[in-house]
């Protein structure tokens, strides 16, 4: 268990625009290993939702199976959660989203759950540009079954037992960009300064927002020789651009030097400000994004931050032209054509 949390809070704890304290966004006590990267990601989700002043009950949390998929219990206790079957969260999330387009969908998965058993569903949710924030807590190994390599383990990475992975690792950001995600980012569980604004931007994005969060497994994959350990990730992180998230109503007041910042306006009017070291880089360029991922990999760097962002993509509802009113709010009078229409159908079949 990670920590014990006191129930008493300072009476003057900071409150958000809805008047809630951060505690309102917490969940049950974590049962993951002490020091697990996933708990930091849960903390970042709590902080992001708190800062965005989201009504927790308007969020649906969905996950598959594995250590990462357990985490939805540990945040947003007032949200409905769905711990589905291994690798199948994307389809359940697709159905849930079709039923009620007005909720915020947060999908939590792991590298086994997404890159192996769930690869089929993951890629198809991507190509439908499902409106969801999909976070993979990526530690390169199967924690719950004691540390087997996963499909995202890098070639040459050594696990705790000394086994060196001979297979090519799957880069989920590359897959996401290739197959139609409209928001693709990578971060590190140990870098909340980067992760929190990324989650806020992802939650505000309409369409498939994918964040690959390197989240080390302290028990099975934090050893020397592993490329998913805390030390290795810290030493090899390369940032595309520093990320600021500016909510809808705020004006962009900070002054940025010419060519230094790139402002992307999201569907809901909020802004993502990317302060970038490379003035030529454009986050909306899909081909450039793929190229940068490949170059970073070649250099042994872990590219983090927003990798690709297309704010104007059509989501699944737009593609299907579904009713603006959520389908789950429609009643008999909206749905049932009645006996007269049925009589006409009978007549057509005589």
């Amino acid at each position, binding site marked *: 268990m990670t920590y014990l949390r006191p129930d008493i809070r300072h009476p003057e704890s900071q409150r958000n625009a809805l008047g809630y304290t951060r505690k309102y966004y917490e969940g049950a006590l974590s049962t993951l290993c002490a020091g697990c990267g996933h708990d930091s990601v849960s903390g970042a989700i709590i902080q992001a939702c708190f800062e965005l002043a989201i009504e927790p009950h308007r969020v649906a949390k969905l996950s598959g199976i594995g250590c990462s998929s357990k985490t939805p219990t540990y945040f947003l206790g007032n949200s409905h959660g769905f711990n589905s079957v291994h690798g199948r969260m994307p*389809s359940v999330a697709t159905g849930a989203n079709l039923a009620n387009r007005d909720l915020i969908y947060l999908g939590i998965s792991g590298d086994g759950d997404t890159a192996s058993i769930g690869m089929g569903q993951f890629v198809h949710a991507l190509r439908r540009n499902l409106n969801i924030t999909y976070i993979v807590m990526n530690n390169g190994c199967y924690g719950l079954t004691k540390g087997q390599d996963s499909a995202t383990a890098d070639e040459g990475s050594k696990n705790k037992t000394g086994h060196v992975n001979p297979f090519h690792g799957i880069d989920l950001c590359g897959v996401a960009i290739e197959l139609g995600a409209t928001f693709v980012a990578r971060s590190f569980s140990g870098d909340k300064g980067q992760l929190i604004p990324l989650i806020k931007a992802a939650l505000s994005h309409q369409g498939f927002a994918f964040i690959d969060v390197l989240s080390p497994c302290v028990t099975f994959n934090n050893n020397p020789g592993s490329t998913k350990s805390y030390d290795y990730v810290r030493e090899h992180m390369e940032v595309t651009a520093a990320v600021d998230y500016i909510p809808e109503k705020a004006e962009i007041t900070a002054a940025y030097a010419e060519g230094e910042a790139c402002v992307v306006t999201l569907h809901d009017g909020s802004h993502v400000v990317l302060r970038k070291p490379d003035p030529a880089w454009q986050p909306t360029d899909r081909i450039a994004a793929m190229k940068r991922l490949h170059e970073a990999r070649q250099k042994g760097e872990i590219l983090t931050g927003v990798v690709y962002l297309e704010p104007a993509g059509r989501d699944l509802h737009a593609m299907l032209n579904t009713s603006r009113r959520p389908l789950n709010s429609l009643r008999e009078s909206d749905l049932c054509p009645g006996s007269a229409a049925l009589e006409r159908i009978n007549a057509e079949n*005589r």
Partner: protein
Amino acid sequence: MSNLVNDFVIRFANVNGTGSASANTLFAKSVFRMGVPVTPKNIFPSNIQGLPTWYEVRVNERGYLGRRAGIDLLVGVNPQSMPNDVRSVRPGGYFLYDSSRPLDPSLRRDDIHYIGIPMILLCQKHFEVPRVQQLLKNMVYIGALTALLDLEMDVVKQLVVEQFKSKEKLVASNHLALDLGFQYAREHYDCPLPLRVERRNSIGNRIMMTGNTACALGAIYGGATVAAWYPITPSTSVVDAFEKYANRLRTDPETGEKKFAIVQAEDELAALGVVIGAMWNGARAFTATSGPGISLMNEFLGLAYFAEIPAVLIDVQRGGPSTGMPTRTQQSDILLAAYASHGDTKHPLLFPSTPTECFEMTADAFDLAERLQTPVIVMSDLDLGMNEHLTPPLRWDDQRQYDRGKVLDAKALESIQNWGRYLDIDGDGIPYRTIPGTHPTKGSFFTRGSSKDEYARYTEDGEAYRRNMDRLLKKWQTARKLVHAPEFLQPEPRHPEAMIFFGTSAYAAMEALDELRAIGIDLDAMRLRAFPFNQAVHDFIEQHERVFVVEQNRDAQMRSLLMIELGISPQKLVPVLQYDGFPITAAAIVSQIARYHPAAAELLGGNGYSHAVTVSQKS
């Protein structure tokens, strides 16, 4: 051959993909419009173009709608299958062929009649484009049949007008082709044949519809808004029809917005995942599939059973196992569907016998699934789903309200102090559920496929697990009372022996009961309509000494289910089976039951219907 007015079987042997389907349908529909009961069956290959395909039509004014073996007239226009087609005609029957080229002498039989119509020559003379000649060749033989079988040409031509209402210029050429065949037959043969159609008034207000279309309409009327599926024969036309009618009936005329969503999923696993996600979130959703899809859906069926999420599945069964016979019919998913998934699971099944019941049961399945908070599977089959059946008109009560089951809204949540997702408040095993987004602080819970306590908290406490499993069993007992009761064919049991049947076996079973009575075997009969079995099913079996269970699979799966669930002795239940992929016939049922009545079996003799009329094909 004796006079066969309104009582014969005609089979069309065509090449797949040559436009024969619409011509053959025209024939069946013409008989229907003349007020005579008709049963068309499409016997098609797993192929898009080139392989042999057959269309078999039984005309029977007494209203027997099951398949009957024995072909009285064969329209043979496929050289590939012709040797077998000639062999399949009953002695004294007719073989109608394209006499544009002479018939190979090896295809001559002494005991049948040959009717040659120079179909392609007539077409070449009157139509220029070769593709048109090929297509209209089919209409030429329909024209010939109109003369030979005494169909009413006005009826046939009117159907052509309706068929091509959007392509008017095709009407004239089709009418001409009909006339060419008609005149040639009139001039060269004695028309009509002893085998013919006479107008009757035996249809009433019935309609012709496929079970798949009826299921789709049931889903629309039942309030389904999300359909998720993966294409698979023979279920594909369920979602095709859902889309067609939903576009018509559920699209906002002003905005074009759709009050439904269809997802063609990446596989059947995902299809059921979408359904479960949508129903968890308060929409009505369904999937349509066949046996191979149910195999894949086992994982999600277990989740939905254990996490108690409603779902509606339509299983249009085909020949198994594995890929099996994808274009042939069977009732062989019974045990798979009843107990799908690992661990202790069972699922309510509904067994429609007609398209009308497909409509009603699909609509009812949504009420049942939501009331019971569990997946409900409508067990159709290829014969029911893909063939047109004569069936009572579809009816809908405009006063009907959907039963959304025990769902708590925000107001209800405010008034409840102690809510637990899996608490059995009412003693029927059915707990109260909440839909995401209902209330800011009440009613949220974690849905999971792992063990949990009454408050949906994860637990590995064996006692809490057992309590939950026992409550699910209590819910199963509730389901027994809620699902469709069986249909009894007599007001009171009268005979020591009985027959049980379900689904599409009903057509042949009803006919078999009459035939058995004619040779002195009287049976009571019950048509099963749902699983779990009601008390009435148990009582009926108890009231009889011997019960024949008619079904279309090798392993007598329904018989096993009756034995397992009701504790019936195996000796008491006698299997009556047909599993060659063709719809079961009355003759098959009669011959198997007659074995238990040697004296009556003597009377049976040779009825001339060879049960094993199979279509072999080169592959």
